[in-house]
């Protein structure tokens, strides 16, 4: 452990990076490249791609299993979710998802996986241990965004053409409420204290803030960037710090991440990243935030405390999703 830290420190010094923010730990990030049909593995100590894993067709949604042993990646055009062994960094298995899986969410125990299947208006429920399909839940047209409330009781699914956030009771698996949001809702994220649900609307250009108890939209975040046409602002990925103080919102072809003060719901800063920024993931120590930039084929590294972009890493073609080892 000591030698490892020492090495990290030295590498940091050499690159000049450590002066700004010395990486206390190195993490491993996995990035799905939608067009290359690969997953890029990034080492956050050296900020380099250490491996490129061949996966199925059109990889998008990507996440670690709770035990950290596998990376699950939805390969939409192959109608399955592939499992990458984090040790060998190769595909070892696949899950029986429904057709065209895009994004998914797992329960806190890591036992049940909920998959949004864009092609047939369903959410598929999968037993992760048995790797078996348990059933489907009918939702709106083109289900996409998926998240689970911090207490594990509510599954949220957003449907892109129906323009709703569906609240699904995870025990009964029935829809208990539907909340209309702006056009093409793509991503949903709870505050860690469960008091608010944030839903991004790509075509509507807003983020809706929903009271999860009342099932009502209580506010909307709008974005304005001088010199940029409004149509280019298309919010997708959302990341919230663990203290629920700061949210980061990817604005797609606006090529920026909006930094939002969660309490006042005001945008405090826009960070210029790569082109068509989709999704993001924090390093577990929350020092860095990594964003996938679809059109420029790279990943931007944001220093969370300084709110600055410190690095860009080239990955495969059309990077889409990202997950970081716990």
């Amino acid at each position, binding site marked *: 452990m000591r030698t490892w830290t020492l090495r990290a420190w030295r590498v940091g010094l050499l690159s000049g990076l450590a002066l700004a923010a010395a990486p206390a730990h190195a993490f491993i990030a996995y990035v799905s490249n939608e067009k290359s049909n690969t997953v890029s593995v990034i080492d956050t100590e050296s900020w380099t791609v250490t491996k490129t894993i061949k996966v199925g067709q059109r990889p998008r949604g990507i996440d670690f299993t709770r035990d950290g042993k596998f990376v699950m990646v939805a390969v939409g055009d192959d109608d399955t979710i592939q499992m990458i062994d984090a040790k060998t960094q190769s595909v070892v298995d696949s899950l029986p998802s429904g057709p065209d899986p895009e994004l998914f969410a797992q329960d806190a125990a890591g036992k049940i996986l909920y998959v949004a299947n864009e092609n047939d208006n369903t959410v598929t429920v999968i037993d992760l241990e048995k790797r078996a399909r348990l*059933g489907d839940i009918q939702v709106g047209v083109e289900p996409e965004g998926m998240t689970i409330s911090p207490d594990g009781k509510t599954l949220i699914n957003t449907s892109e*053409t129906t323009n*709703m956030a569906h609240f699904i009771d995870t025990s*009964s698996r*029935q829809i208990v409420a*539907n909340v209309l949001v702006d*056009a093409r809702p793509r991503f949903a994220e709870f505050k860690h204290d469960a008091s608010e649900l944030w839903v991004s609307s790509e075509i509507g250009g807003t983020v809706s803030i929903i009271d999860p108890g009342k099932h009502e939209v209580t506010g909307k975040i709008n974005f304005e960037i001088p010199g940029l046409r409004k149509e280019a602002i298309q919010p997708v990925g959302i990341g919230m710090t663990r203290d629920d103080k700061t949210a980061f919102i990817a604005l797609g072809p606006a090529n920026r991440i909006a930094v939002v003060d969660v309490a006042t719901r005001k945008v405090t800063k826009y960070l210029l990243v790569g082109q068509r920024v989709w999704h993001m993931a924090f390093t577990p120590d929350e020092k860095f935030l990594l964003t996938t930039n679809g059109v420029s084929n790279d990943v931007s590294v944001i220093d969370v405390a300084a709110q600055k972009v410190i690095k860009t890493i080239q990955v495969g073609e059309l990077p889409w999703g990202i997950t970081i080892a716990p």
Partner: protein
Amino acid sequence: MIRWLVGLIGLGLAATSALAADPVMIGVGYLGIAGTRSTLSLVEQPAENDGVAGARLAIDDNNTTGKFLGQRFALEERRIKEGEDAVQAATDLATRNGFIIADLPADALLKVADALRERGTLLFNAGAIDERLREADCRANVIHTAPTRAMLADALGQYLVWKQWKRWLLVVGSHDEDRLFADALRRTATRFGAKIVQERSFEDKGGARRTDSGVTLIQRQMPVFTQQAPAYDVLVAADESEVFGAYLPYRTWDPRPVAGSAGLVPRSWDAAQDQWGAIQMQNRFVKLNARRMTALDMQAWTAVRMIGEATSRTNSGDIKKVTDFIKGPEFSVAAFKGTKLTLRDWNLQLRQPILLVDGRMVVSVSPQEGFLHQVSELDTLGYDRPESKCKLK
């Protein structure tokens, strides 16, 4: 265990649909002309259900959403034969449907619009691209999801100018709509700084579009027809009537690309469009209709989705409420074109990006980069507010 869980899920569904016991019914009529027009390319021959197939898919999409809101959509199709009265058919449809999607020629559409004005029926023009329906002959009860000739011409022109193909050889057919498209192309050339180096007209002398030895003859005619032209970059064909346009690519005297009614064609939609989530809808369409989706299908889909969008936002099936919302400043609809689509409030034309397609691929999407506008870049396509002659009434 698994069976038990599946059972639970089934139960959940039943409970959800029970919530919407008495759904609000929203009737949508579809009024079109019976029969299809003949095209030069067999591949492009429209299906009998061209247009209405898109409306059907949107009805399904609306119903998926509607089940969460207690709304149910139904489509009633009516095709009129030659000599049949469009007004009578429309009036009959309007007794059961508050909204009518129309794929009618301009004159028939205007008659229908005027006949239904008092009734409050909202019409969607999904088929006619005539400028005059949005200009001097605009109507307050007609929303246009079809683009106009000027929008199509501008979309093409922006790309040709961006490509630095600024010298155009314009070939115009001998029918009225060919001349109207040529008018639009001339306007585009003036607006964006292209030069029409020469115009030629292609006379329609009748004759069949399907023949057994067609290729041999065409191969002799087209090079001769296009020879001795002044230096040009691209041949632009105005042939909405499908008489000669598709014969031009690869057969021009000079080796030049063809655009307009053949070659690189501006369209509101194409079966090859797969960006911005469109693949999901293309898949749904093929599954439902066993064929690929055309521009007319998309224009009808968009019209029915606009109704669905407004009924879900207003949580109402009331025609007046829905109509007011669609015409209001808050309205927008997503239609897989990378940006929200809104209405030009001065003439009720839907703003939309236009695809440039070659029959196999989407080559580009206009507006092109660098064509700027103070309100919306989509308004660089077609007639803009200051030049509009429309007075909605």
